[in-house]
């Protein structure tokens, strides 16, 4: 019975698909799907038509995706690339084609982003490009983060592009040359004419705080606490405590003997 019902449904679906040409046209333009949003997230097409984006919405080639203060968005492109856009950021999808041919050209216009690459760019690195006013980024199987400072970063942060790579590697290129940044590395590029400056770490406050980060930040406990510690003292870094416990045990034993 269920099998018959499903056959009918499949047949109906075929008719539906054949009659949905305008929708297919839109789908042909589709680059991905919004997975989650917080706050006001919008997309604007080149013709100026804007729409609000929430989870489940289609992300289209040509969109300029923007987040307002306190907002953030995460979406996935058809090739599996993930993008997380923090507050006060704007990213343009210059051209997105998948699967045949494969091409992902993007521009970070403002703010920052974190992205984990998908299929595009794996076979041919030139199929992927993330442009910024300071440098253009290519990927080599990557999870990386960018922050573009244009007088909108915390006081004391120089204008330019800040980069961190968490997985794989990226290639940053501008008028001064090409630079490879590997996983675990961070760097700063002041402008299009300057070369890349490697950094041990980037200032934490550079990256817009995400709603889930909380206000805590920095300064965690250096020692673990023991709920069983009657004295309230602790063993440093979880040192098993046989050393510190041994003295008290011995003392009580010996106090008796010598009094």
């Amino acid at each position, binding site marked *: 019975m269920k099998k018959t019902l499903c056959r009918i449904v499949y047949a109906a679906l075929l008719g539906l698909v054949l009659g949905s040409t305008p929708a297919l046209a839109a789908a042909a333009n589709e680059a991905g799907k919004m997975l989650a949003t917080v706050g006001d997230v919008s997309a604007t097409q080149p013709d100026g038509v804007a729409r609000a984006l929430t*989870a489940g919405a289609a992300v289209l080639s040509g969109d300029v995706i923007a987040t307002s203060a306190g907002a953030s968005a995460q979406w996935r492109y058809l090739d599996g690339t993930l993008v997380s856009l923090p507050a006060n950021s704007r990213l343009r999808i210059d051209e997105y084609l998948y699967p045949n041919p494969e091409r992902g050209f993007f521009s970070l216009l403002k703010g920052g982003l974190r992205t984990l690459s998908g299929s595009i760019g794996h076979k041919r690195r030139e199929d992927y490009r993330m442009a910024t006013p300071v440098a253009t980024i290519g990927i080599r199987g990557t999870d990386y983060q960018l922050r573009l400072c244009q007088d909108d970063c915390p006081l004391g942060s120089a204008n330019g592009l800040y980069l961190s790579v968490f997985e794989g590697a990226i290639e940053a290129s501008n008028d001064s040359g090409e630079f490879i940044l590997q996983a675990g590395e961070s760097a700063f590029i002041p402008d299009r004419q300057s070369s890349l400056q490697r950094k041990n770490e980037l200032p934490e406050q550079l990256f817009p705080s995400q709603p889930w980060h*909380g206000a805590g930040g920095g300064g965690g406990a250096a020692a673990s606490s023991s709920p069983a510690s009657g004295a309230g*003292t602790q063993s440093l870094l979880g040192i098993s405590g046989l050393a510190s416990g041994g003295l008290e045990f011995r003392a009580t034993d010996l106090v008796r003997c010598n009094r």
Partner: protein
Amino acid sequence: MKRHNDMLQRLPGNNPSRPTVCRGAGQLKLLGLAAAVLLICNPVWGAGLDQLQQLVDDQQYEAAYELANTLNAQSAGQMQFDYLYGLAALETGHASQAVFALERVLMVEPDNHAARLALARAYERTGQLDLARALLNTVLERETNSGMVTLARERLAALPSAKTGRTRWNAVLSLSLGYDSNVNATTDLEQLPPPPATILSLSPGANAQEDGFARLGFALNAERALGARSFVFGGVDGYENMNFHEHDFDTTQVGFTGGGGFDGESSRLLLYATHQRLLLDHASYLSLTAPGAEWQWRLGTDRRLVLSALYAGYRYDDLSERDTNALVVSAGLRQTLSWSSAPRFSAFLYHGDEDARDSRFDYYGRRYYGLEFKASFNVAARHTPYLNLRWQSSDYNGLDPLYAVARSDDYWRTSLGWTYRLSPQADLGLEFEHTRNKSDIDLYTFERSRAFVTSRYEWR
């Protein structure tokens, strides 16, 4: 339930204000409807989430990650899927995937602290230690479940060292008040069976004395990173234990510990030195100086194997014949179970070999081995009962000069307590402790019971 419903409303498939593309919107809605029918007709997709949940529950993370990847195209963005996918990715070494999936969970449900703890681990794996620390501190500030808080504390402590050039501090202050049945830990017999050719009776006050006591404890610790995987640490801790009447047995202990640590992929090596001093009635009595090493090896997410060794010199200020040197080695396991009550266990087996510095007094030396077991559970938000057990067997070297026998002791200590968390920084605790030492020489046999309440505050 309401919050769950609210959360469901925000998921892609349940959002009543789900946006559509501008062109062909009506047709796309029809396509969406058709896709829903397809889902119903294809039981594989419906069953997939249950199967994924089961695989994660069974800790079959490789299989879970593989399945999650096949479901990813249609299920990403659904909170339950994202959480399971995040856990599976985290446990199989795909930390970047875990970061994105778990961030989605928190975008939909910002108070999901289980996801926050997992995301902190994912950040840690991708080297974003500040973010990991911020998330763990947020759990400490906002979570009321003691199990989560304890996990967050443990992970903060286990977090690899801060970024180069930064120093982390913490300080603890505690006050205990209680009753002690035997402040000098001695026999309750006033007269003892005589050793050969000797009549032994204890002087008044030398046998068991009961009293009330107050104890003030403190600790101050710091850690500073030298590089991505190395750090130095140091700290001072101690206590002042004041009896209400028996001031002869007031004790004070102060200890200094400092050393360095190295973090590997799944292990941590600590090399340190410690110096501790015990004062009796505010007069210096005994000190311990020891270099030590400890190796911690992570076995999975919440299990840790710990091996340690310590070479200790015990020195008595006025009784140098009792001075000894001891080598203590131990092996143990720390385990946290992923149940809602987050039960935690640790068991350590240790062995000590201690020799008198002066061979004329070799009977002060001993060989001993023991077992220490600790367990704690979170029975309700803020409530953590715990049980600590310690057993030790000691065989002394040589014959006791008074009794002409080789001393042999069996020592037991049992502690049962309950901690109530007042705030992320403050605890209130109640503990009962019983100690029993059974020796073949009656002079050394004693029992001791203590009951006390403790308030504790920690600054980070």
